[in-house]
Structure formats: structure tokens, C-alpha cells
């Protein structure tokens, strides 16, 4: 297996990353996989523990978000696959990249923070290097070129 991985969270901040991934898929003719990771960290500040029901709901929501993303890609003539995982986003991206022996992983930059926040940029580059080390996939940043 091979292909491109694009982790999607939904919302306007994800759109440039999705666009970049679609462009890359068109260029390389590789299969594009959109990844949505269900993470329940937000529950740590409440007193809720019914995680199985919430996981189900977020799973459904993730499927829908990926469906809207896949529709967007389809309109541009790109066929895609949707993958849903549970857990830590960073770990799941690396895991999937290793599993499918991905050629590329497209990472997004927080909107409006590309130049302003050196710290965030540094962290993303650091994460990109880790993915490359662990899986051998090349990293493409939505706002720039390969790392």
C-alpha cells in the first residue's frame, strides 16, 4: 500500500490542508486517505465518564465530516478513502502512516499563525520530522513545501 494521508478536523482551519492534499493527490496520482481521530480529552474537565456513548456519537460525526471532505475531493475528480481512529491524534497519524507505508503526510498550520507563531511552526516541524523518522513518509505543510 501507499498513498497520501491528510488528517482532518473539520472547520475552516482544515480547508487549506484539505486543498493541499487534493492538489497533491492530483499531482502524484496517489490514493488520498482522509483521517479523523476521535479524541475525548475535552471530557477531562467535566465529571462525565460515559465514554462509549460519546465515542459512538463522535464516530458518527467524524464519518460525516469525512464525507463532506470526500465530496469536495470528488468534485475535483479525486477519489479518496476515509479512515476513523480513536486516541491521540499525533500517535494515530504516525501509526496509519506506518501501516499503509504512506508516501506523503499533509499537515496543516493553524490559520493566521503561519508567520506569527514561531513556536507552533517549530512544533509542527518537529512532529513532521518524527513522522518521517518513524514511517519514512514525506511531510507536506499546507502553507508551504515539503519539510
Amino acid at each position, binding site marked *: 500500500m501507499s498513498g497520501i494521508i491528510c488528517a482532518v*478536523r*473539520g*472547520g*475552516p*482551519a*482544515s480547508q487549506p490542508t484539505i486543498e493541499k492534499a487534493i492538489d497533491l493527490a492530483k499531482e502524484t496520482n496517489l490514493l488520498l486517505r482522509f483521517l479523523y481521530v*476521535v*479524541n475525548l480529552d*475535552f*471530557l*477531562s*474537565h*467535566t*465529571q*462525565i*465518564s*460515559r465514554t*462509549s*456513548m*460519546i465515542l459512538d*456519537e*463522535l464516530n*458518527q*460525526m*467524524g*464519518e*460525516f*465530516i469525512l*464525507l*463532506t471532505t470526500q*465530496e469536495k475531493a470528488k468534485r475535483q475528480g479525486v477519489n479518496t478513502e476515509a479512515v476513523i481512529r480513536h486516541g491521540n491524534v499525533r500517535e494515530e497519524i504516525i501509526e496509519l502512516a506506518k501501516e499503509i507505508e504512506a508516501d506523503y503526510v499533509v499537515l496543516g498550520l493553524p490559520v493566521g499563525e503561519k508567520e506569527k507563531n514561531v513556536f507552533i511552526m517549530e512544533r509542527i516541524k518537529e512532529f513532521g520530522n518524527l513522522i518521517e523518522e518513524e514511517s519514512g513518509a514525506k511531510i507536506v505543510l499546507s502553507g508551504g513545501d515539503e519539510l
Partner: protein
Amino acid sequence: MFRNSKKPLLLIVFAILASLLFSFSTHHEYAHGQSVTNPILFGEIIDAQNTPVAGVEVLAETQGEKISSAISQPDGRYAVEFTEDIPDEVTIIYERAHFQNITISLDPDQINDLENGITVVIPKFTLERKIGPAFWIATVVFIVVLVLIAGGITHNTLAALVGASTLFAISYLGHPLNENLYIFDFAGSIQYIDWNVIFLIMGMMMYIAIVEHTGIFQWMAFIAYKTSRGKMLILLPILMLITGIASAFLDNVTTMLLMTPITVQIALSVGINPLALLMPEVMASNVIGVSTLVGTPTNILIGSYANISFNGFLQNQTPGVLMAFSGLVIYSIFIYKKDLNEAHEASETLINKLEERGKITQPDHLKKAGWIGAGMLILFIFGERIHLLPSVTAIIGATALLLWIRPNIEEMIEAVDWTTLVFFMSLFIVVGAVQEVGLISVIADWIGKLVGDSLLLAMLAITWLSAILSMVIANIPFTAAILPVVGFLSANVPGAEGKVLFFCLSIGAALGGNGSLIGASANMVTAGIADAAGYKISYTYFLKKGLPAVLITVGLAFIWLLIRFY
């Protein structure tokens, strides 16, 4: 044969009657003798807030030697029985942790009466509070717990558990080193846990665990979408109403857990920002939920403390809630009109997916849950006539549903949110500690002086103070702590006997929760799910949208309370 068989029967009846007569006459003689021969000293103890003080050790002594003792009861009354001869000098000592000891000497007339077997009544008196190290320790622990919860520094349950454990550790480990470090013992702390609240929440959780898997919420949201035919200005009020009505009977957090994902999907399918639907929904959930006893955790706390029934909330709050809801709908349309107008027609694929999601998945379970729910509603409404506690109704209803549906019992037990129950129990202990050491009395005294005899001032203070504080510290711990203060004001402010101040607290605490992200657990859950979909609800964003909503909704509901009670 017949005559022969009758004889033993008559003998048995005679024996029973004789033994009853004998036991009655013995008991009567004993009781009568006791009232004549054993003199009793009666009395009643209250604190500065006119609240009965329980657990006061009343010691009768003569020349430093104990001759009798008694413990004051929850109504503050005590009865010291003298079984020996009455000496010429009798001193009565009143002792209780966190209060100043009082010693009084009986006068010769009182001693004479006791000697003659005449009951002596000591006039009701006030025991003064003692502010010592325990007071400050319990206060600091309480504030730290509030900060941990409000700041989201730890899980709410962990914060409350840390608070309760710290109090126990100080009481048990610190007490031998310094007796002023004693706050309360385990048995004393348990008395502050409101088991009616715990069992009501538990019963409702078990019921909800069945309902939430039936797909009813998703179905209602999809029907709302279809009914509105994609017109967002129609869809928004319908979604708000569905969320609100569901919140009035189920808890707000579950309602939002189920409504948020489907709402995000509807918003994404028509291409609008999901926050334009989610923010009004969660605010409606906090507003309409307040109209019933089981609608919000704060109402459950208030109802149990002040003995306000399901009907009590329904009758006294619903008109105000409807006024507040109308104001909220208009406000929501006003602030999100631009976003709502950006809606476009959803693609066929997305509509198909929505339709797939909007199906009742377990119709049989839903039907049974509907019947049981209707039965529970009837018991909630009419149960007060037979003194049926809401917690009993909830447990009976949940058990009946489990028996009828026979789900996997382990899964059902897992569905009960034990962390929430532990949170409530620990919180009751932490709040109980500040009650025990007198912090609540100090606050009650201060507010009492502030409002004086004015019912209007008291209503204003409780409503708006609760609304403001619920924005800063989560409304559950705030409500648990303020209840005794409201109880004190209700007993002392003329005109407040009709529990109006508890309704003010209910309105303020629940609707005030709309003012900030941490104001209600439902807000945090909604924000968490929205964030997972890529739409961040920041603290500032919530404050900006929520604060005007609080002013509008609390203002309108307060007007109703004035009309109803003032």
C-alpha cells in the same frame, strides 16, 4: 367435635388478651412511674441564624462530677433525665465543636422543681460560633476546590474528592496534634450527603441510558430539519425548543451530548457555521431545563433541600421560563442572522447520510421507555400527595424499565455516570465542612444584614448573585454551598416563606450558567464536541454571546417571579 375444638381456641384467645392486658398495664405503670419519679430538664439550642443546632452535648454536673447528659436533636431540642437524687448545686454545660461552650447554673427554684419531679424548661438560647483554625482550613479547602473546578485544572470529581480527603486527613491526623484542627468525623460528614439527590440522579441516568440509544434525539433533529425545509430561521427555534424540552426531562449534559453531533452534521450539510445553531441550543437547554425538578442538577439540589416538588417547579417557573425562552430565540436570531442566511441546499449524499442518522434505531425500547417515562411523569406530578420522593420514583421507573427491556445489566450499570455521583457525594462533604465550621453562617449573616427585611432586595441579591457567581464558579458547587444561606433568608425575610428565594436561586444559577463556558457542564460538552469538529468555542466567544443572553433571560424570568411572588 365442634365444641371440643372450640375450647383450645378460646383458651388461646384468652391467653393472648391476658398477656396484652398485662403488658399494657406493666408498660403503662412503668411509663407513668418514669414521668413522676425521673425529673427532666428540657431546652432548645439555636445558632445566630435561628437554625437549630444538633449534636450539642448537654452535661449536667455537680461540683465537677457528671450526673446526667443528653445530645441535642436535629430540631435543636434536648432532654436531660435525672435518675439520681438532685444535688443542691447543678451546673449545665453545653459543648459542641465549632461553637463556644456555655455553662449555666440552675437557680434554687429550678432545683427545687426537679427535686419534686417537676419538669424544668430552660428558655431557648443561642450558641455562638467559634472561629478557629478548623474554620480557616475548611474555608481554604472549599475555595481551592472551587478554583480547581472553575479553572479546569483537574477533573471536577478529582477536585471534589481531593477536597473531601483533605478534610478527613486534617480531622483525623491533625486532631490528635491540635484539637482545634477537628472539622468533623466520617459519620458527621456522611450526614451532609443528600441521598435523595444521589438516588434521583442515579435513577434518571439509568432511564436515560436506555433512551439515548434509541436514536430519538437524532430522529427529532432530522424531522426538524425536514420540517423547516432548509430554512434556518425556522430550524433554529425548532431545534432550540426540542433541546429545551428534552432538557426539562433529561439532564442537560446528555441532551447536548446527543444533540451536538447531529446539529453539527445538519449545519455542515447546509454549509453554515455549526456554532450558529449550537450556541442557541445549549443556551435553550439551560433555560428550559429549569422548569422542572429533574431538568437541571441545580434544581435537583434545590428541590431536595427546600422540599420543592416537581409541580412546584412546573407551576412557579414555567411562565417565567417561557418568557425567557422567547427572549432567547429573538436574541439568537439577531446575533446569528448573518450566519443562518448563508445556508445553501444540502447535497443528496449528505441528506441521505443525515436521513440514515435520523432513524429510530430501537423502536421497541423507545416505546417501552415512553410508557415508563409517562408513568414516572405522573408519579413526579402526583407523587407528592402520598409523600413519594422523586428519587424513589426515579429508581422505581428505572428498575421497571430494566425489568421490561432486560438489557445487558452490566452495560446498564456502566452507563450510570459513577464519576458524577462521586463528584456530588464529595462535593456535599466539602460543602458540609464549611457549614459545620460556620462559614455559611457568616455569609448568611452578611447577606441577611445587606438585604434587611426587604423581600425585593433579597430576591434581587439571590437571583443576580447566583447568576454572576454561576458564570465564575460552576453552578453545581455554587448552588450546593448557597442553599443554607437561602434557607436562612427564607426563614427570616418577611414574605419569603413561599420559597420564592429558592426559585430565584434556581433561575439565577441555571440561567447564569449561560454567561460563561464553565458556567454549566453542558456548555463544556458542547464546546468540546464543536472543537472536535473544528469549530472552537473559546471562553471569550462564549462570554461575548452568553452574557447578553444572561441579562435578557434572567431579567425576563425575574420579572415573572416579581409578578408571581412580590
